[in-house]
């Protein structure tokens, strides 16, 4: 039909255009002399802007409270910056390591691991990373917790030796006198915490960074932490053991000559330390971590850190489809850990079942409501709406009382002699329970659109069909039913999409075979705190729903959906 229309209109418009070219010589002008097209555009634009301004409050509200949080949540399904942020030096060093070579990383990696974990444990971030990596590798959680406690001992090896060498290195004040700039020291010494003024931010003495580059680096981190996070007086604060190990590295490093040439404050002590440092006991970082936990000298933790060091990961999405990242690329999980694919299938299957049973039960109700006199129909409508005014939990719990084996329905059946007392029906804590309870809960969402569409079908059509000789069935099937399809479509979309995301009812009545994917999403949000995986599962669910919606539009046509007359 539409093809024919197009075929006939096309030549017509071509003709019209030709005629137009013959008759007009310039653009059409409006009353004020501007071209009509521009004037019209301007008027339309003004209208559009005022319309936009009118809906702006709502639009902003929806964007801020609905779209932005969802986008933020979905973004977590690929975001993985915690590994790089917590272990910046280690992940950089690990880039040179061959994760499949079967060799452990070298000393440099262990040393940066020490530095990273030291800073992280001061900021209490290492356990967070532990919980993150525990999703991928069992045991990472306690490994990081233990390591956070253990790193202090590593740096203390140097701290003790420097302090034994000269008590000068014990005191934070001395360190500040050596490392801090004169201007900063002057203001810092005048500063009183009680005064309420902000602490003067630490400034490094000129040239220190050239002779003691690593010490300067870690002292800045230390100073920043003390001044900005702990809010303690930096001048009085003794440095972290980490600073001592950096100090040792500097004294035994390539800047030895510059250190010897240094003449600023503390030059004598510095020269003494530089002379003594080469004979200090040094730390074998790999061995130190092996002492904390032998997992550090095995491959899995390093492979996991290497695999998850990029800022973005597809790991959560792989998890969500029962796969995992391995050194050889994505692979299926072992049989006994696959669950999400089963749950996705089950969720879709059961949602279809629930939608079908809603159509089956809702259609006759909608028909009766539409065909009764208004007074009676309104009364019955209240009965349909009644469940909306009852708490979801109450309704679901009521089904428990009804459906359980010692419940009302089974008792009645046993009393009627339909089922034997020792073989009562299992109606709850399985798929049957979920389908029954959810059909009941979602039924109004089917009845309401059906009713409002059926209300618009003139009863005379049915009478006309019958008077033309149709049987009751033919009249219904050929005349009435096609006109009610938009209502079925609208109701089905509502019920299906609502049921796909339901989790309270399946959790209460679903047992082990009647739970949905949303139950796992809820679990990962509130119990396991694996928000990345929850976001990935949610994103997949959203994609499936949008895909089905698209398919529905292609097959049935979304214009064929009506929520009312």
């Amino acid at each position, binding site marked *: 039909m539409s093809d024919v229309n197009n075929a006939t209109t096309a030549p017509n418009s071509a003709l019209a255009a030709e005629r137009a070219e013959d008759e007009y010589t310039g653009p059409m002008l409006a009353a004020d002399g501007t071209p009509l097209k521009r004037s019209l555009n301007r008027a339309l634009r003004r209208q559009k802007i005022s319309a936009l301004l009118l809906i702006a409050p709502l639009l902003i509200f929806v964007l801020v409270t609905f779209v932005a949080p969802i986008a933020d949540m979905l973004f977590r399904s690929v975001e993985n910056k915690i590994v790089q942020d917590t272990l910046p030096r280690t992940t950089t060093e690990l880039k040179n390591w061959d994760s499949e070579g079967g060799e452990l990383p070298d000393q440099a990696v262990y040393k940066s691991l020490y530095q990273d974990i030291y800073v992280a444990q001061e900021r*209490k971030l290492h356990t967070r990373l532990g919980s993150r990596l525990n999703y991928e590798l069992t045991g990472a959680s*306690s490994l990081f917790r233990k390591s956070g406690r253990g790193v202090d001992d590593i740096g203390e090896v140097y701290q003790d030796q420097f302090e034994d060498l000269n008590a000068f290195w014990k005191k934070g004040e001395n360190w500040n006198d050596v490392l801090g700039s004169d201007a900063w020291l002057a203001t810092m010494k005048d500063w009183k915490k009680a005064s309420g003024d902000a602490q003067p931010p630490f400034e490094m003495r000129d040239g220190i960074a050239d002779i003691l580059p690593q010490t300067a680096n870690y002292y800045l981190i230390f100073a920043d932490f003390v001044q900005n996070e702990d809010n303690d007086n930096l001048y009085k604060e003794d440095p972290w053991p980490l600073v001592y190990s950096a100090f040792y590295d500097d004294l035994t490093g390539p800047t030895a000559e510059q250190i010897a040439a240094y003449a600023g404050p503390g030059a004598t002590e510095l020269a003494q330390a530089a002379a003594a440092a080469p004979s200090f006991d040094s730390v074998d970082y790999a061995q130190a971590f092996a002492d904390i936990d032998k997992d550090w000298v095995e491959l899995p933790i390093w492979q996991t850190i290497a695999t998850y060091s990029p800022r973005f990961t597809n790991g959560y999405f792989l998890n969500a489809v029962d796969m995992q990242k391995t050194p050889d690329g994505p692979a299926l999980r072992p049989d*006994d850990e696959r669950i999400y694919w089963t749950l996705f299938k089950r969720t879709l299957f059961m949602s279809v079942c629930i939608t079908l049973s809603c159509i089956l039960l809702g259609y006759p109700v909608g028909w009766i409501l539409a065909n009764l006199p208004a007074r009676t129909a309104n009364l019955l409508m209240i009965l349909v709406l009644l469940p909306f005014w009852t708490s979801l939990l109450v309704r679901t719990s009521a089904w428990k009382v009804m459906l359980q*084996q010692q419940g009302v329905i089974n008792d009645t059946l046993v009393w009627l002699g339909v089922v034997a007392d020792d073989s009562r029906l299992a109606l709850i804590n399985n798929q049957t329970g979920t389908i029954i309870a959810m059909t009941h809960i979602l039924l109004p969402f089917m009845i309401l659109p059906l009713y409002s569409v059926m209300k618009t079908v003139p009863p005379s059509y049915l009478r006309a069909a019958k008077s033309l000789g149709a049987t009751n069935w033919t009249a219904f099937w050929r005349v009435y039913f096609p006109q009610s399809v938009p209502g079925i479509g609208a109701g089905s979309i509502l019920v299906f999409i609502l049921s796909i995301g339901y989790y309270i009812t399946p959790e209460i009545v679903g047992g082990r075979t009647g739970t949905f994917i949303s139950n*796992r999403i809820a679990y990962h949000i*509130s119990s396991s705190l694996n928000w990345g995986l929850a976001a990935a599962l949610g994103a997949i669910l959203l994609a499936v729903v949008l895909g089905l919606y698209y398919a529905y539009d292609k097959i049935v046509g979304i214009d064929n959906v009506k929520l009312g007359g």
Partner: protein
Amino acid sequence: MKFTTTLLASSAIVGAGTLAFADAHGNMAKDMTLVSWGGAYQASQDKAYVQPYLGMHSDVTAVWDESSAEAVAKLRAMNEAGNVTWDLVDVVAADAIRLCDEGLAMEIDADEVLAAAPDGTSASDDFGDLLVSDCFIPQIVYSTTFGYRTDMVGDTPPSKICDVFDLEAYPGKRSLEKRPINNMEWALLCDGVAKADVYDVLATPEGQEKALAKLDTIKDDVIWWSAGADTPQLLADGEIVMGSTYNGRLFSVIEEQKQPVAMLWDAQVFDLDGWIIPAGLPADRLARVMDFVKFATDTQRLADQSQYISYGPARLSSAPMVGKHADLGIDMAPHMPTDPNNAQNTFLYNYEFWADYRDDIDAKFQAWLAQ
């Protein structure tokens, strides 16, 4: 060692700092938002120490938020949003450890923050091993254990945990919690694993398979619960022969509702519940909470709580002060999970093990459940 001393010193400074601040400005917040579990447990807290505290400070108000079940997720979300509205949160120990790990709970020094026992024993000695995390202030010891219908088990009521797995002697449905924790331990124990080896075995894939295989033998006869109220309801309706839940719930089924139910204390699993203080509270709110929590967890208050609910007080010094139930007038001591008669064979929730293995074993458990 050095670390501990610096830590102690620094928290002492923080503590002293807050107190000084509060004194100097005379400024403690007037409102507290307390988070708990609702129900009988929250009521026991309200009667034992919240109302008495409010009685002593007539200008202070306390609001309850019944969000403990989702406390970890909600605190994390509040923290990310930079607006923590809770002042004191009641959580189980495992959650306290996770909140501490995530930096969402404040580390405290028990001796500094909490009251000493009446005989002068320091708080850290009085709570002893129950201080399982630097952020955790224990209140009660509860246990997850079984209750059974006395009228459905014949003449020989179940007396051992393995009776749960014995479908011949005790036919009928059982209820178990829909998570691996506790169930895996019980399954291994009844599969012949010695109690001391349970966690070593459970750490291996073979051990996990073994536990699931044992659970498989009763899989068709299990109703899986996710809310603590499920098992009491199922028992009261005669829907199950026996089921696991928290001992306080069973106490109320047995003693308050007088249902034909009895306790099976064998292999009960002890767990702890207590307070955490969210990290990053403003000074005035922190000062108020510190003041409250010191009062609410002292020896007398914890003993008072056991008049209202059958959970054991977490302080050693409170134990001798456990008296009678406030309404029923029965002795509470024999109903405590820690009573010597009940505690002949017990487990303590293995926090470290489950922190590590929770994600892995849960994946396997749920996959097994869905099959």
